[in-house]
């Protein structure tokens, strides 16, 4: 295992072909030693006979084939874990970057993890209160779910994600809670925004950070979410904590994947992304969940910026095919100065029904949710009609719905960045707004619920 090889033949992008090797194995790690003694890490992507194709994590810049020595380590990429990782910051391959002490590992795990046996899963059904009405009220998040933010460039998704990280909690439990934050290819500024926020609010003390910034090696971006999720699994299933994982920005991750695929000269799929991107993404997103008989859980909030705001672009498309719903951040609402600009109509939490109701949130939640959604949808339609045909073309009832839609955007959707609404406040706000609608029009609500919660203003 300690043989050093000098026979580097080709270097293409982050890939390096090493010849005359012996005993090299698929996916194992390699150390590439530069003439000045510095070491870059790499991983075996393919091995044939005595030739190994190695991808270099920090990139191949400055490597000359003749000067380097390559050593294969006999194991894949691992993360050193112990309780001490909390409140620490690491790079994409799990090395501390906060000048703190090295982690004395209690456990070392392969960052790729293993798939959860489907029979071991427990269904996510515990309500997480994020304090954001559009999420808690209409697109309820539950423990163990993966619910991405579908955003666009220039939109305040980072602020929304930070607010969720700051406020998220499960009602009536004192169980351990941690945030694993994984930055992929975002700017220093964006990253600082999160770090400052975590610092100011004390969230840092229960967070683990993995930072791969825009100027950091692309190839480490592929490892970063895996390292983060291996850490989350340790916190959740070894230490029994409830872990919220924020992955930002998945678009940069996918672009890194495309870059490597292109360097390998693979047959490109749609828009140049590799054909296996669905499988690759699922090996990240499917690491969310709960396990029967274990107290911890992993909830994921991946954040992605849709190129051109196009939801059929492969990145949001394949993400939507794997996650359990999506929250849309809307450019139109943002343009009107509404924060958080969540467009509730196309947003959906597929697991919401399992997390709401009498013992979880409130008895009226399900009815109120459906009615708010339907009323907003009708009000928005009326508003569009009014734009085309003039407000006079609307019926009296439709005018009320239009008014409701305006009020809904300003009173329900919009809230302060530091405003942490309880689910009661969220639902009560909804009822207050519905008070402006005729009772007979609230067809999605059962009469006894109407009796109890609906009041004309």
């Amino acid at each position, binding site marked *: 295992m300690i043989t050093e090889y000098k026979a580097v033949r080709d270097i293409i992008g982050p890939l390096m072909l090493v010849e005359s090797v012996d005993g090299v*194995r698929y*996916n194992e790690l390699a150390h590439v030693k530069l003439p000045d003694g510095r070491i870059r890490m790499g991983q075996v992507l393919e091995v044939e*006979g005595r030739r190994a194709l190695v991808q270099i994590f920090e990139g191949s810049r400055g490597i000359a084939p003749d000067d380097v020595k390559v050593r294969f380590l006999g194991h894949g990429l691992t993360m050193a874990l112990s309780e001490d990782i909390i409140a620490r910051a690491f790079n994409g391959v799990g090395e501390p970057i906060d000048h703190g002490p090295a982690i004395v590992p209690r456990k070392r795990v*392969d960052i790729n993890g293993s*798939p959860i046996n*489907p029979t071991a899963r427990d269904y996510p059904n515990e309500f997480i209160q994020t304090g954001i009405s559009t999420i808690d009220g209409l697109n309820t998040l539950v423990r163990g779910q993966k619910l991405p933010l579908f955003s666009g460039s220039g939109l305040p998704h980072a602020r929304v994600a930070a607010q969720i990280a700051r406020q998220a909690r499960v009602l009536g439990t004192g169980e351990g809670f941690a945030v694993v934050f994984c930055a992929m290819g975002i700017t220093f500024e964006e990253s600082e925004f999160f770090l400052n926020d975590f610092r100011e609010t004390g969230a840092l003390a229960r967070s683990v950070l993995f930072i791969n910034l825009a100027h950091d090696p692309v190839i480490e971006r592929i490892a970063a979410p895996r390292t983060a999720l291996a850490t989350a699994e340790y916190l959740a299933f070894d230490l029994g904590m409830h872990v919220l994982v924020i992955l930002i920005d998945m678009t940069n991750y996918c672009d890194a994947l495309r870059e490597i695929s292109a360097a390998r000269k693979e047959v490109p799929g749609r828009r140049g992304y590799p*054909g296996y991107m669905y*499988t690759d993404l699922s090996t990240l997103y*499917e690491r969310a969940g709960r396990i029967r008989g274990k107290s911890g859980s992993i909830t994921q909030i991946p954040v992605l910026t849709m190129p051109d705001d196009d939801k059929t672009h492969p990145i949001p498309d394949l993400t939507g095919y794997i996650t359990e719903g999506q929250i849309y951040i809307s450019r139109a609402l943002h343009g009107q100065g509404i924060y958080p600009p969540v467009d509730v109509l196309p947003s959906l939490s597929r697991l919401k029904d399992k997390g709401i109701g009498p013992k979880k949130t409130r008895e009226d939640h399900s009815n109120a949710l459906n009615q708010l959604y339907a009323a907003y949808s009708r009000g928005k339609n009326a508003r569009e009609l009014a734009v085309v045909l003039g407000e006079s073309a609307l019926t009296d009832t439709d005018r009320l719905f239009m008014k409701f839609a305006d009020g809904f955007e300003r009173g329900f959707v919009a809230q302060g960045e530091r405003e942490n609404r309880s689910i009661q406040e969220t639902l009560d706000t909804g009822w207050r707004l519905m008070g402006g609608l005729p009772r007979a029009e609230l067809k999605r609500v059962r009469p006894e619920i109407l009796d109890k919660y609906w009041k004309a203003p």
Partner: protein
Amino acid sequence: MAEGKIEKVSGPLVIATGLTGAQMYEVVRVGVEHLFGEIIEVRAGRYSIQVYEDTSGLGPGAPVLATGQPLSVELGPGLMKAIYDGIQRPLAVMRAEGGDFISRGANVPALDRSARWRFVCAVAEGAEVAAGDVLGTVQETPIFAHKIMAPPGVKGRATGFRDVEATVDEPIGAIQTDSGRVEIRMLQTWPVRQGRAFARRLPPNRPLVTGQRVIDMFFPLTKGGTACVPGPFGSGKTVVQHQLAKWSDVDVVVYVGCGERGNEMTDVLMEMPELKDPRTGRPLIERTTLVANTSNMPVAAREASVFTGITLAEYFRDMGYDVALMADSTSRWAEAMREISGRLEEMPGEEGYPAYLASRIAGFYERAGRVRCLGSEEREGALSIIGAVSPPGGDLSDPVVQATLRVVKVFWGLDDGLAAQRHFPAINWLNSYSLYLDVTERVAAERVNAAWPEQRREAMSLLQREAELEELVRLIGVDALPASDRLVMLAAKMIREDFLHQNAFDAVDTFTSHPKQFLMLRNILEFYHKARKVFDGGAEVEEIAKLAVLEDIARAKLTPETDLGRFDEILKEIGRQLDALVVAGEENRSETSS
């Protein structure tokens, strides 16, 4: 058996040499951990092997062992209620032995070797038997009698069969053939890539009742038929598949989760034991077998999972049962083929899919059908296939969708727009189709009501008329529409909201019997007919649209199956309220004229 050595490792693909004598599709064990693999190409002594487990840590020089066997499934008692991975390893047993995460190299037999089953003999001593003849049965669950059949290629006299309690691999009797004695065990195997034999094909001309109104009424499926459900993410493919798995009037369900979410399998696993089969009153899990190779499980095993599922389903069909197989999602299966093909450096076809994509898809759906089973007893079985398709961006020009549409007979097109309006099931009634309509309508007319076909036709033409009118409305506004067309719009809206819309998560609405479906639609259409009359008699559409009975019609979907008399009451109420409009109208007129 030959032993070779690894030459190359590239993701799930391993190339080995030295496997002389090994055959295409033979199972091999790779590396010191004995990972499962299958030979999928042989070229000049280089054997390409797709490995069903993570290949990390494998390298050139590691051993590869041939087994002499093609990739096969185990068949016999113990299949019901089981959940398997793509190569039929029992996931529950793997969890008990290996923990919550799937570890590599697990070698666990599909059928429990220690379980003892009560075999009830059905052949007389010395009787002549041939392949497919039922030798006896095992009551595997209260609602599933597992028939033990004479294995393929065996013909002779039955000896030594009797009622006995045995494990699957103990002999339960023997068949004396021309070439010697063949011991019979309950356990049999069958290679997954080869369809099981039957006597002959029969036309799939009996309806498969799903309890889903838009399906049964407008785009019905038959026993032995094939259907596909394409749609973008979140449009309701999985919910449709789950609904069919729960409520189809079949004897056995095989559900294949192919490259989809782990939580969805958990959902099935947790719900099926709780839900009761409407026909037998027993938990649905007692007639269900699951194959779960989720998206994060090895991609080669995903490729195999569809074949594993269909072979199990064929085996149940051969017992003379009606079987339904759901595959969610066939696109993930096709993507697995694409990935392996790419690693083999095959010439890519459309969108990088291999050139044989269409023939593989056709070959899969061809394994559906209604058949006369092997065996001397007159036995008939049917296997229906319902495949979900997940095209990129919901675009139906996708090669997997197109290849599928060329073979299946029913197309349930899910519509993003409908899903966005929360109209579920989001099956687009304008572009979906079923080529089984003729036969299913004939049966429904006989069994339920002679007016079934006529009602369906009228409802569909109202919906089509609505679509045309909507185009107009967009241009000129609804007020500019003639009043009689506004009445059509009202009727179509009722069909959409009060009939087509069906909430899968409501305890009553989730399943609707054929008779109830008929009555629901009858009331809507009767309302429309009577409304037309009173309208012609001078009543205003706006007044008609305000009638309280509309609320009764809307809530009728929540009427329990045991209370279908309620529909006649509503019908009477429809008559009363519309007649009252006429009377009121006449009074008004007579007032104004006097």
